[in-house]
């Protein structure tokens, strides 16, 4: 090291080497729904494997889809819902899973795997993370004050305009997830929930436009707090969200009592699934992450935290009793039979759904 020039060069080289070493550090970039995991699971995974988790969240399937379709999203593991998964597979977004790297797949629940195979033939691209239903969440006392002792067990409570009119004052929220809400309305009208006929989509839209004057809000995130605070008294919502609202109300000790019900007409059953984008850079690490999440005690920990059922049969012995025995989280076999799934909307039917839904939201 005679000249300062050489010394500079040596410094630069060693800096480069350090950067290279940092790049060697193993990473996995995960894009999951917000509030959808026990954060300690990510720390445990890093401790066990040495792979750093870069965790990012979304709250809308459309956001995920747009990022994936644009390409180069930079994510290694993403969590799309069933119909979105199916359409994205068709668009060539995902790589096939290497099952040899996923030994824990033997823990999965055959019932859920079979239903998921409707979206992903032979379960080639995805494994289930959580699943749930879209039902009715309500404030027990407020509804009782308005409707008396009428049991809340049917979509009638919301979809019959005379009932909705009575509930207007205490606040109705409609879930802003047109794919699901249209299927639910079609099922309510005794039509095929999976219908892609324009006339059927319009008929389903009618169900909502009739109750539009009575709806206070239409959203798919803020309603959790609104229900917990008593700002709304009834909502179409996702099972786990309603249970989170219930938990928040109990923690706040504000006297709000919340219940979730799967209406007797049946409802939509959804699956959120782990998949690897075709352009993922850390494929090895992505498999390791998915395999880790299929460990019974790990996924049970996630279910205990987010209050959703998972698709892992072996995990049920580790799931908290109050969650496992709650029929609105883990429905009975009989109720399970009344749950339906739908295939994605495409082209014309998608446009019709969005157009009808936008007009419904704008109250036109």
């Amino acid at each position, binding site marked *: 090291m005679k000249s300062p020039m050489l010394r500079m060069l040596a410094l630069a080289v060693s800096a480069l080497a350090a950067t290279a070493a940092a790049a060697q550090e193993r990473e996995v970039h995960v894009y999951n729904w917000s509030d959808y995991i026990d954060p300690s699971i990510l720390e445990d995974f890093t401790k066990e494997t040495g792979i750093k988790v870069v965790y990012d969240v979304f709250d809308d399937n459309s956001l995920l889809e747009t990022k994936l*379709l*644009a390409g180069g999203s930079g994510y290694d593991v993403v969590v799309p819902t069933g119909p979105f998964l199916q359409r994205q597979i*068709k668009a060539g977004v995902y790589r096939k899973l290497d099952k040899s790297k996923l030994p824990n797949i033997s823990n999965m629940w055959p019932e859920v795997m079979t239903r998921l195979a409707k979206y992903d033939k032979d379960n080639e691209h995805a494994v289930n993370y959580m699943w749930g239903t879209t039902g009715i969440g309500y404030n027990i006392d407020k509804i009782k004050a308005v409707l008396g002792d009428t049991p809340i067990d049917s979509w009638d409570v919301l979809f019959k305009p005379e009932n909705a009119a009575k509930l207007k004052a205490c606040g109705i929220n409609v879930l802003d997830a047109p794919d699901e809400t249209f299927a639910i309305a079609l099922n309510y009208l005794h039509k095929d929930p999976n219908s892609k006929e324009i006339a059927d989509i319009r008929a389903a839209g009618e169900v909502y436009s009739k109750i539009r004057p009575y709806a206070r809000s*239409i959203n798919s995130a803020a309603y959790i707090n609104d229900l917990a605070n008593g*700002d709304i008294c009834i909502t179409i919502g996702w099972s786990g969200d309603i249970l989170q609202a219930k938990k928040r109300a109990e923690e706040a000790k504000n006297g709000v009592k919340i219940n979730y019900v799967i209406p007797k007409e049946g409802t939509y059953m959804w699956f959120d699934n782990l998949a690897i984008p075709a352009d993922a850079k850390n494929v090895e690490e992505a498999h390791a992450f998915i395999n880790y999440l299929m460990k019974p005690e790990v996924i049970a920990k996630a279910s205990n935290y987010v209050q959703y059922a998972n698709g892992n049969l072996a995990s049920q012995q580790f799931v908290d009793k109050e969650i496992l025995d709650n029929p609105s989280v883990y429905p009975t076999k009989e109720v399970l039979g009344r749950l339906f799934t739908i295939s994605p909307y495409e*082209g014309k039917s998608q446009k019709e759904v969005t157009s009808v839904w936008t007009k419904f939201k704008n*109250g036109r």
Partner: protein
Amino acid sequence: MADAPAPSFAKASPLRWLVVIIPYLWLVLFFAAPFLIIFKISLSDSAIAMPPYEPVFEGFGKLGDFLSALDFENYQSLVEDSLYLAAYLSSLRIALISTLLLLLIGYPMALAMARAPSTIRPTLMMMVILPFWTSFLIRVYAWIGILKPEGLLTVALQAVGLLAPDQQVEIYRTDYAVFIGIVYSYLPFMVLPLYATLEKLDGTLLEAASDLGCPPWKAFWRITFPLSLPGVIAGAMICFIPITGEFVIPDLLGGPETLMIGRTLWVEFFGNRDWPLASAVAVVLLLALVVPIVIFQNQQQKVG
């Protein structure tokens, strides 16, 4: 002196050409090129693919096939569904009302700043700019905390007795909240150009008016306001154009019935995955804003 020939080196100097070219290069790179890409996508069809439209440009060899597949279908759907026209009109209405409100609030502020003693002007200027130091998004979120039914405004009004304890303000998720959010967010953009023109105003003109017996309010309308028109126009344009395409404020503060073209565009792009139609919406929006402004500018130049 004015007739002296330009130094000959300037004509041939490549430096001079560079100076001329740079603005054009800037325009081509950051305006024309993106616009052409958007325009091209607007002529495609949506598809289930990555990216979600076709045809995709795959080189000049297949240029013929590529061009023959393009059509104006998406522009047709814009005309056929009344939703888009309603959204454009609603955006223009919201932008117009907001701009007028901004002028009403911003003009007195700018005037007061310009007439303030020069020692405190920098402080006033700082106060106008200060909100920029916090993220725009957080400031809009803060408004949610103020306007929501159980928010600060309700609490404050209940505390002073203007609102009964069981009553709540119902502003959040209505058009009123959108106007409040827009006026708050864009106020500096209105005040600064106004201040810039008002500050340069020749004060002796007003003194002369006063000497000749003109009352202050008349002097304002006959001297101050006409002379500040360039600032008014600049401020109005800087506010009106982005407000028309605004997405964040109506999405966070507006209700489900707040119809704005920015939201329509979002729904087309994300909800429908219809990039071509979303691009068509954007192209029409751009033309709807640019063409009248260009015509206006031309008129101004002719008058001038």
